[in-house]
């Protein structure tokens, strides 16, 4: 198991290197530069700026310098927000995005799992149709529609919750729910599918033949196998939660890393783009690994194959 984890972590290095390389050259090849918009900067100032940001060195030199920086945790200065370095900005903004993602995932699991289990225990009845209709709604109503609609209803019309912000608990309710809704929907569908599959297995019949109550059959024997698809989905879901937060952070004016990334992209803030991409990618890789470990903990057969 430990060996499996170490091996996986070792594969992170080439993947992250590839990501840095692709991002670096994509950003540099693109037409336009970070200082295009600054009107009529004197030639001398521009040259100084470029020198300050190491933009006058040959491209390969810049690339190697950047790589060297990454290894020591230095992601360079921000082009557009020079008050802090990129690393400092990330340390400042990342916790907000992570907090948002955690709440959203928690909401998604708390709604999605019970809904899916309920639906699967009595398929093709109202107990199945009602939660699954909501799930379909969650999938078909994009979060950038759902968010504003919720704001319209709960903030503007009813006045129960604040419109934007990320300081008080009340401010965190709408964004977390908006981000989590679609994942609740997917988790509900996956749980239902997984549970239906498992509940048709022979070992469930064995459990019933032992005289276990239906609740015990579902929870003790059905749940583990039924949740495997959900666990497998958690990796991609966390990636989605992080990138999905771009929109949510924009709608609710949340000072997170997602908004920082989108702003950086629009502003061609090279170092900021690369820094945020690197951190987000690393995060997704780690979370995928966590999902795989969870899967191994739940399924002894997977655990065997890891040895």
């Amino acid at each position: 198991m430990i060996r499996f984890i170490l091996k996986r972590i070792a594969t992170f290095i080439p993947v992250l290197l590839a990501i840095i390389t692709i991002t670096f050259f994509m950003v540099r090849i693109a037409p336009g530069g970070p200082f295009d918009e600054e009107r009529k900067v004197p030639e001398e100032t521009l040259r100084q700026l470029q020198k300050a940001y190491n933009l006058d060195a040959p491209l390969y030199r810049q690339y190697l310098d950047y790589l060297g920086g990454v290894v020591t945790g230095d992601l360079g200065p921000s082009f557009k927000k020079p008050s802090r370095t990129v690393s400092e900005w990330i340390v400042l903004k990342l916790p907000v995005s992570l907090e948002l993602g955690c709440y959203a995932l928690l909401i998604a699991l708390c709604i999605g799992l019970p809904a899916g289990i309920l639906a699967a225990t009595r398929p093709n009845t109202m107990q199945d149709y009602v939660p699954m209709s909501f799930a379909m709604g969650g999938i078909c109503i994009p979060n950038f529609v759902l968010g504003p609609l919720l704001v319209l209803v709960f903030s503007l019309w009813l006045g129960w919750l604040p419109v934007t912000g990320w300081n008080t608990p009340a401010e965190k309710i709408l964004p977390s729910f908006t981000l989590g809704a679609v994942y609740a929907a997917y988790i509900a569908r996956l749980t239902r599918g997984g549970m239906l599959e498992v509940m048709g297995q022979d070992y469930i019949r064995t459990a019933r033949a032992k005289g276990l109550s239906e609740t015990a059959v579902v929870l003790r024997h059905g749940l583990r196998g039924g949740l495997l698809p959900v666990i497998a989905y958690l990796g991609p879901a966390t990636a989605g939660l992080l990138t999905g937060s771009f929109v949510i952070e924009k709608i609710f004016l949340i000072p997170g890393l997602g908004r920082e990334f989108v702003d950086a992209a629009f502003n061609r803030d090279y170092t900021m783009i690369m820094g945020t991409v690197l951190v987000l990618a690393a995060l997704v890789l780690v979370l995928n690994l966590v999902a795989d470990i969870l899967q191994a903990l739940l399924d002894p057969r997977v655990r065997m194959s890891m040895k």
Partner: protein
Amino acid sequence: MSLLEVTNLRTAFHTRDGVVRAVNGVSYTVAPSETLGIVGESGSGKSVSQYSLLGLLPTPPAKVESGTALFEGTDLLQASPAELRKIRGGRISMIFQDPMTALNPFMRVGKQLMEPLRLHSDVPKGKAREEAAKALKDVGIQDGEAALDRYPHEFSGGMRQRIMIAMALITRPALLIADEPTTALDVTVQAQILALIKQRQEELGMAVVMITHDLGVIAATCDRVLVMYGGQIVESATRPDLFRSPAHPYTHALMASMPAMHHEGEELYTIPGLPPDMTRPLPGCAFATRCAHAEEACHTTAPALQEYAPDHGTACLRIQSGSLTVAGLNSELHA
């Protein structure tokens, strides 16, 4: 005094393609500590007739439409789900066809073994573990203590079936229903498992209902036999009677198609035609369309199981009327 007395059991499946009458008026008894074999093709209703008793069929689509099943003073078919759960796994246990899928792959063997014990008696956990290890030893798994902490996929098919048997018998049931317990196993293991069931049966003094499509299994284990076809019992007899003088053309055809009944190089006999369409029951005998001895009456009059000799029942109209003798039916079988 019989242990289990089933009368006029009818079970149907309500599917999109119509109503499947899987078990169509079946009556039989099981005496304490005897082995009753139920033999028939797949779809003959032999498994459904047992699953109906324990409420193990998915409802819907399945529905027990009539009948009584008295077991130790309780009518299983009228019992509440909670009452039935107490009997299931406690007084009546089951083992299934495929040991590769019948054990929960996510749960350690020990935990699965202790589950029925903890459910049906208030044995403390430590004691339950001891009993589980002993149960494994009783089915021939020597290192029972270590096996408790392993997962099902770490065992072979035969070993898993032993675990299944240990699990079924850990509550010392009065009745074990074995649903094709050897079908999925290697030939070499089959005999071992049958011998094990027999041995444990004698040690515990329980009755066994052995569901199988294999007359060889019947010959090796059973005291009495029911032959099922099209959801009905077409013949009931003691094992020696059944093999010596089968009294229904279907039983006869079954035996004629056994490889052991053939000389070397002789072509295997197969029963012509297809099993009956259970959604459209025929007015007469279900076997009539495939029967070499069928007369006009067989296609129009539904037969009932009747004793034509002591302890030997048949649902064949022609045997009952005497127009076909058992000896005549079997003339070529022993030739």
